[in-house]
């Protein structure tokens, strides 16, 4: 029982990071019907920039609490990621706005590789470790353990997701985003500059990615120029699992994928009599993804394609 609860907790923590990244995929897809494959790399850059700032602050021996230092790293990462997201759209995707759909897709993969290589040039090939400056408290809950970092990740994710939902549902910008997603031409007649809305969508998604990047490097204690690839792939899968284009779907898909992955890691050894170890957790997660999509091709909360105007 306690292993089960433990894996659920771990899964929810991991899943909320996936969800934050998945929101970026799904917001862009909702408006442009474009899979921004470079989004995972934006997350990686968020992790790298924040770690650079955090390591530098720790290196010079700043006398601040660990949490404050991490927040300063985050504050540095967010604008950098926003800038990267904005630039990607402006330089790589906007010139291809009216091109056949395959062109921006290939470009997205290209941008992803370019960003990886830039990161490798700046930060090198080695793993960068997260300084142990965060509180290491552990708490017992239902026979399982939850750490301070895990609690912080969960709380911050919930706050960000609620904030984003509120913004999209209630604000003028959110309404303009939804209108543009449905018809950029008609939204234009209302006075909405589609390019501005698209830029803001990239900027917003990239800010969430920056936060996710800091979370994931704090959680695993590591960052690496290649970390965005698998994280991005999983977050993208989470968005597809929930129904791409749907915000609630991205959150649900992210949490589910995280939980499935954790349960897979916890039980796959026992279930297969030790043939498959917990390193097969990714296979397990993607197997579930394929299974769901076989029966619900539009994802769990996705609309049937015909319902799109």
């Amino acid at each position, binding site marked *: 029982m306690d292993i089960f609860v433990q894996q659920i907790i771990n899964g929810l923590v991991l899943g909320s990071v996936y969800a934050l990244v998945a929101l970026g995929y799904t917001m862009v897809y909702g408006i442009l019907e474009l899979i921004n494959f470079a989004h995972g790399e934006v997350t990686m850059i968020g992790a790298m920039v924040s770690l650079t700032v955090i390591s530098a602050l720790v290196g010079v021996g700043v006398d601040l609490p660990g949490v404050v230092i991490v927040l300063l790293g985050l504050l540095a990462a967010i604008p950098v990621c926003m800038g990267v997201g904005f630039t990607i759209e402006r330089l790589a995707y906007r010139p291809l706005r009216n091109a056949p759909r395959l062109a921006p897709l290939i470009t997205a993969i290209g941008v992803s590789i370019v960003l990886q290589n830039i990161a490798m040039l700046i930060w090198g090939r080695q793993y960068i470790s997260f300084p142990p400056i965060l509180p290491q408290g552990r708490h017992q809950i239902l026979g399982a353990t939850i750490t301070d970092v895990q609690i912080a990740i969960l709380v911050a994710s919930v706050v960000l997701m609620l904030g984003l939902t509120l913004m999209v549902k209630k604000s*003028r910008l959110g*309404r*303009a985003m*939804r*209108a543009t997603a*449905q*018809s950029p*031409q*008609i*939204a*234009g*007649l*209302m*006075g*909405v*500059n*589609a390019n501005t809305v698209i830029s803001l969508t990239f900027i917003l998604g990239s800010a969430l990615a920056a936060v996710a990047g800091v979370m994931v490097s704090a959680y695993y204690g590591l960052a690496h120029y290649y970390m965005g690839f698998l994280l991005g792939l999983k977050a993208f899968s989470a968005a597809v699992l929930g129904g791409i284009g749907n915000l609630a779907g991205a959150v649900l898909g992210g949490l589910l994928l995280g939980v499935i992955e954790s349960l897979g890691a916890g039980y796959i050894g026992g279930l297969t009599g030790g043939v498959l170890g917990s390193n097969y957790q990714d296979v397990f997660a993607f197997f579930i993804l394929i299974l769901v999509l076989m029966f619900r091709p539009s994802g769990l909360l996705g609309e049937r394609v015909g319902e799109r*105007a």
Partner: protein
Amino acid sequence: MSLLAIQHLSVSYGNIQAVSRADFTVDEGERVCLIGANGAGKTTLLKAIAGMLPVAHGAIHFAGQSITRLASHQIVHLGLALVPEGRGIFSRLSVQENLAMGAYIRRDKAAVQQETNEIYQRFPRLGERRNQPAGQLSGGEQQMLAIGRALLSRPRLLLLDEPSMGLAPLMVKTIFETIADVAERGVSVLLVEQNARLALATCERGLVMERGEIALQGAAATLAQDATIQRAYFGV
């Protein structure tokens, strides 16, 4: 001076020149209708005026300034609104949100609220369904919503593309009463309409479009008496 002045306007749609060398004006407070067969270029002309299609040649002036090269999101600020063909409502947004989109360019919240309530009074069905997705409305209700939404940008000129399309006669009557009311309040109207008889009865002046060109223009009453027009468009 005219509110809208179209000079030698040509618009291409792919390789086809859908509008060629159109010349006409709409004066302040005037109601003008644009009639013609399917494919004559009426919708293309309206879209080009509203900034949804690029102009190949010629010029469009609105309220004294050139809007030839402006995008639709800029033009609406000058007081020109288009109710597009097929209504173009945001089906997944609620009725209320569709109206809010109509007022997107405005910051005077109190007045917008006031005018939104007036629209609900004029079209009670919209008020009853204000929180429902607009896609659930009937065709006529969607047309009312599209007109109400366009009015919330406070246009000086309202372009309407086939507002009666696919609607029941009673609904057509309501829509045309609304158009007449709007014009009463000083908003100029440029109306594209399949129902030529109704269009000429509603407007002061008419334009007849044939194969991308303005073939004929004049007082609506005169055009309505024209034997050629009666044969071609009234089905007599």
